């Protein structure tokens, strides 16, 4: 299949450029060689603001400078659990592929949603959040493995998946010949 072939080759080429496939080591260095910036974003409630939050998050990723998990969710470091949950839901309503497709966004938002979800998973778990906060202060590598995953996802998200070339490739189930009948 055409899209598979090109997807593989783009994965392979992104390999050589960022070697993300090797996993944690390289990616972590990439991420954490940059100073960890913690921005303070006020909580926004309106739908319009919601969209802007999402877009801001997206530009961050595309510029491949992922900030802290708080930044991913667009919340303050001292955010309460209800605030974290609310932020997660607000972003999900924009970034979840189901919604994004309907709103006619061509970009594949799956990666961004995964990123948001990972941030939420860590920050909504008191223990994981405490661990994360410590690593954030010390600016050291976190022990969790999620960065290798997201690292790999970065290469995938940045690799141009030819959505247009194959009807309903990413968001709809297609009748594919390689499906086992």
């Amino acid at each position: 299949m055409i899209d598979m072939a090109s997807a593989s080759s783009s994965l392979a080429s992104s390999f050589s450029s960022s070697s993300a496939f090797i996993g944690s080591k390289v990616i972590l260095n990439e991420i954490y060689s940059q100073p960890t910036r913690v921005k303070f974003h006020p909580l926004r409630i309106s739908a319009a603001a919601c969209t802007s939050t999402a877009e801001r998050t997206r530009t961050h990723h595309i510029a491949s400078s992922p900030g802290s998990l708080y930044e991913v969710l667009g919340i303050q470091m001292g955010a309460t659990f209800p605030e974290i949950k609310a932020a997660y839901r607000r972003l999900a309503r924009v970034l979840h592929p189901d919604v994004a497709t309907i709103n006619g966004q061509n970009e594949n938002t799956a990666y961004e949603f995964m990123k948001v979800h990972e941030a939420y998973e860590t920050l909504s778990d008191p223990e994981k959040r405490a661990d994360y906060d410590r690593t954030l202060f010390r600016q050291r590598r976190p022990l969790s493995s999620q960065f290798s995953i997201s690292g790999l996802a970065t290469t995938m998200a940045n690799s141009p998946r030819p959505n247009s070339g194959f009807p309903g490739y990413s968001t709809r189930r297609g009748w594919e010949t390689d499906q086992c009948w």
Partner: protein
Amino acid sequence: MAEPAYTVASDSETTGEEKSSSPFPEIAIGIDIGTSQCSIAFWNGSQVELMKNTRNQKMMRSYVTFKDEIPSGGVSNQLSHEHEMLSGAAIFNVKRLIGRVDTDPVVHASKSLPFLVQTLDIGVRPFIAALVNNVWRSTTPEEVLAIFLVELRAMAETQLKRPIRSAVLTIPVSFSRFQVTRIERACAMAGLHILRLMPEPTAVALLYAQQQQQTVHENMGSGSEKIALIFNMGAGYCDVAVTATAGGVSQIKALAGSAIGGEDLLQNMMHHLMPNSESLFSSHGMNEIKSMALLRVATQDAIHKLSSQNSVQINVDLGTGSKVSKMVTREEFEEVNRKIFEKCETIISQCLHDAKVDTEDLTDVILLGGCSYIPKVRDLVRGICKKEELYKGMNPLEAAVCGAALEGAVTSGISDPFGNLDLLTIQATPLGIGVRADGNNFVPIIPRNTTMPARRDLVFTTVRDNQTEALIIVYEGEGEKVEDNHLLGYFKITGIPPSPKGVPEINVCMDIDASNVLRVLVGVILPGSQHPAIPVMEVRLPTVDDGHGWCAEALHRAYGSTLALETVQKKI
């Protein structure tokens, strides 16, 4: 077999694309194919509405009879009597047969049904056949389901006066991806495009999310998070979900399920009333089928009565000289099915545990499905969830199909001025997905209850010096050993540069996209290098076809552990 149907299906795909750009996009319908009953619902512009067949039924029996020249299903066919369905000419309970091999205990349990389910116990699809004029006519579960879906589709097209192309179907939580492909095939044969396949309780969760949002709108209150446990037990499957809902977003925290249901309760009861029933009916002669039907109907009737009364007198003449005359109490019924009820409790506890939710956090407990009328089931759910009151806002038999129709409207891009479709379900994987490694072990890469879309990877290595090839065998399930899981497919990595064992890094990455398509990517890297040693493999799964039961065994015979994998201990 049904090659032309695929052409029709791909045709409908393009039509769907064109339609979605028109100002009036096609709204996908919701279909709930139950083991025993099925229903169909659609978004009528302001709310979800259940369709009725020409006999004014919302719930239609899920069966197809082959007694006439053209097979007909429970949508159009009128049963003169319950016994007609049990004459051997009708195939039912296909949901318990589809995508299962003949070594599966669920298939074996189906052998006491009046039609023929033949097993050779070698891991191939079972042979099923209907008795027509004293001839066993073979068919397949996919064919039966397709015939039924064609009838449903025709009914919907007549009533809605428009062609129906897309549908959202509900499936049991415990369905493997291989079983899902069989459902997809049946839909393709029926010319239906599957927009989504939703685990049943997640469809209910969506309906719950909508109801909660409406309540919030009415009270002008704040949309605080509500956590609900959904327990759905029908004739064939028992499913549980824990969902966290706020502001129309339903996040599935955990799913659990098993192929246990009313059919098992019925069979255990039949066995209790007539301990030698299975051996008696195994010959599937005309008279045996008749006796079996009589016993089945009488037992079913008794179980229904035991939901409202404490004891019931069963008197049934089986024709062949044997009679069953017995008084059965509710306690007896509960004792006979003790293991089933215990299993239900285990599934609920596991789901709560996986969701990391305590019973006091539960806002609502929603009990659904045909078995929800059984007092013991109500008691056990209330007991484990420590809730006196069960949620009352849903019809136990209609909730799943309503949820599917809601999802159909939402994913078709329909918006509602009152915000009734301002909904989103964040799904989770019902089963873990991983590969065979470390001997005969199943190593999950995407664990169960991972939020979708998902992408996870794990590094493996070789087990022998100069091992240049490795077999990637992908399984789905929860068992520790590979044989306790469903095989999804396998492929070989070749050209690994010769090096001592344990040196090459074989990165296996699994990706589930928004439409639940699973892809496995495998790359090989040698330490010190920043480049992949060989091109990355990307494989869409499942790839296995029928007879997958013995594929794994054949691979093992052919290769032993020569192409095996080992997990790499995570260096911190």
